[in-house]
């Protein structure tokens, strides 16, 4: 007991204390520096060492960047212009950017097509990525795969239109039959789509020149464009396939369960590069003779299989994290299996799986560079082939690889930022 309270324990404050500024050194930059950088001796030493490391890096990099040569004929011209000072030779990029972006053989006067396809990709992905946008924009998302194909590969517009029509017919039949049972709707829809495509095949054959863009062969696709094509197509295909595999693996139907388990375990046990070799050499045997499916299609099939196995496992983790009570509540309300999955289980399981899915997607996107090993000229293929083996630019390493890394970094970083934003949006468990 202190003697202020000696008279009695009761105390009543009669006036409010005035607000006072905090003591100096407890606010602003000084306080921040002390707390974060120089809290104690080891902390201060680490700070100084890190500062020195950053300085050393920048001291090397900034002059290299500012002295850079942006236009030159070849590497010797570059070196002549630099004249002994340290500097980058970005001339290689201003000279060869079109090869890095579009590959060696894409017709130069048609570059507007991949560029337009790229821009449209964002517009059509937006309604999927941002649920606040009006729902009828999803029409654009539905059309995009066909539009994108037409823009990139060219040819008559009738072919993608027929493909789209097949999908619509299949969906209409599905809607009709699904009231009976889900399986009937599903298989009925697929069968109807195939019939529509088969009939459409004749129309396409007849309408060769209708609204035709200059056709570009698959082997002429290359550069970063090829990586983007492979990445986008494979990620968007492997997500639904991965979901189906994960659900199949949980299924009570023993045969479906085992097909899924064997598929997932097999694919996960094999390096992607072997699958790609299979795609480039072996897979041709599985297609009907004479069809000669192009390499991109085969590679897409392989990469999709690969990533859907991984995504399936990520989603299985999400499904397992869901309390049993959620399934029971859905059951007890009378929801049937597809409804329970679509409305209750998957939204939650997918939300839990977002970091894992993004991990797979980013990894997959970077793995698309492996196609350079089966002599496709993607970004890495272009760098290692046409650029490094050319007499003009052999010996320019940092600049080209840096550019390639930058392109990949921009895409992967955006994906990661988006996913973090999405996770915040979906967080409903705040108290």
């Amino acid at each position, binding site marked *: 007991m202190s003697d202020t309270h000696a008279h009695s324990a009761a105390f009543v404050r009669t006036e409010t204390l005035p607000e006072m500024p905090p003591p100096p050194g407890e606010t602003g930059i000084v306080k921040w520096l002390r707390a974060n950088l120089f809290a104690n001796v080891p902390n201060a030493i680490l700070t100084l060492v890190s500062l020195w490391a950053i300085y050393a890096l920048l001291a090397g990099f900034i002059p290299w960047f500012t002295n850079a040569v942006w236009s030159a004929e070849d590497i010797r011209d570059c070196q002549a212009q630099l004249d002994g000072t340290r500097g980058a030779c970005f001339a290689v990029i201003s000279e060869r950017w079109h090869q890095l972006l579009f590959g060696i053989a894409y017709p130069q006067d048609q570059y507007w097509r991949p560029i337009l396809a790229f821009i449209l990709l964002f517009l059509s992905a937006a309604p999927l990525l941002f649920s606040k946008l009006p729902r009828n924009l999803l029409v654009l998302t539905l059309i995009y795969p066909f539009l994108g194909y037409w823009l990139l590969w060219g040819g008559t517009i009738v072919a993608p239109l027929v493909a789209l029509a097949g999908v619509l017919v299949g969906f209409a039949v599905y809607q009709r039959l699904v009231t009976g049972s889900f399986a009937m709707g599903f298989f009925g829809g697929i069968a109807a789509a195939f019939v529509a495509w088969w009939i459409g095949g004749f129309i396409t054959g007849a309408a060769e020149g209708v609204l035709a863009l200059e056709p570009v062969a698959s082997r002429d696709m290359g550069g970063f464009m090829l990586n983007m094509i492979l990445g986008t197509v494979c990620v968007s295909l492997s997500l639904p396939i991965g979901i189906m595999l994960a659900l199949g693996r949980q299924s009570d139907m023993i045969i479906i369960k085992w097909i899924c388990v064997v598929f997932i375990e097999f694919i996960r046990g094999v390096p992607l590069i072997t699958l790609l070799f299979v795609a480039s050499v072996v897979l041709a045997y599985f297609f009907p003779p004479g069809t000669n499916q192009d390499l991109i299609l085969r590679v897409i099939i392989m990469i999709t299989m690969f990533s859907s196995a991984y995504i399936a496992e990520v989603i299985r983790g999400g499904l397992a994290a869901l*309390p049993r*009570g959620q399934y029971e509540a859905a*059951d007890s309300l*009378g*929801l049937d299996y597809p409804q329970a999955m679509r409305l209750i289980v998957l939204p939650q399981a997918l939300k839990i799986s977002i970091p894992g899915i993004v991990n797979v997607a980013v990894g997959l996107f970077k793995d698309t560079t492996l196609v350079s090993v089966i002599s496709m000229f993607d970004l890495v293929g272009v760098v290692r082939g046409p650029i490094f083996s050319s007499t003009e630019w052999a010996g320019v390493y940092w600049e080209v690889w840096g550019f390639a890394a930058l392109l990949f970094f921009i895409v992967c970083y955006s994906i990661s930022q988006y996913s973090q934003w999405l996770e915040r949006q979906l967080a409903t468990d705040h108290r």
Partner: protein
Amino acid sequence: MNQPASMTVSDEVAIEITGMNKWYGQFHVLRDINLTVNRGERIVICGPSGSGKSTLIRCINRLEEHQKGKIVVDGTELSSDLKNIDKIRSEVGMCFQHFNLFPHLTILENCTLAPIWVRKIPKREAEETAMHFLEKVKIPEQADKYPGQLSGGQQQRVAIARSLCMKPRIMLFDEPTSALDPEMIKEVLDTMISLAEEGMTMICVTHEMGFARQVANRVIFMDAGQIVEQNEPEAFFNNPQSERTKLFLSQILGH
């Protein structure tokens, strides 16, 4: 005790269980259960932990499968026929100990989901019904919040409202208050009492003996997977017959 006129029991049979047995692997959880519940009856099931109370009421809407005997709900026999199961589930509401609300949906969406997708009721109408029942459980103002933002008692009341939105003819409760703090128990019990007063057929697994005395027509005591004793509440509490029941009551009532 005076019961409201609506709390009368009709002769119509709502649930009939005859000779029902269930095993978990080798473990015989439910042994020869015979139970008939009339429409409008309110039954309280109690018994020690692990005696099979949850398993019994979960068999009634097929969250668990029984292996022997017969369960008829609302004239429909529970078999492996999926159509029957879905029909029964949409007629029988269930509230769980841990609420099991859908955390990714708002309170209103929790309540309208099943009516919209199972009953195929238009969204507007389902929302009106949902608001009606949310008012009944006294939390209409929470409709746009997410379950994670509500207290336990509020969540359980939402769970009750969610079941009621399906306009079930039978309600099952599995220890609806045992995960709640004492002050929240009352608000949930009040909701259940008002439901009972409206004549809902109810089967409640609970250890709230005050609730049992106030609303139950019958109290069932289970032990080791069997129905050991059943009686009207007054007789059950004041004059238990079996030794096992006496022991259990003395423990739970704290004498």
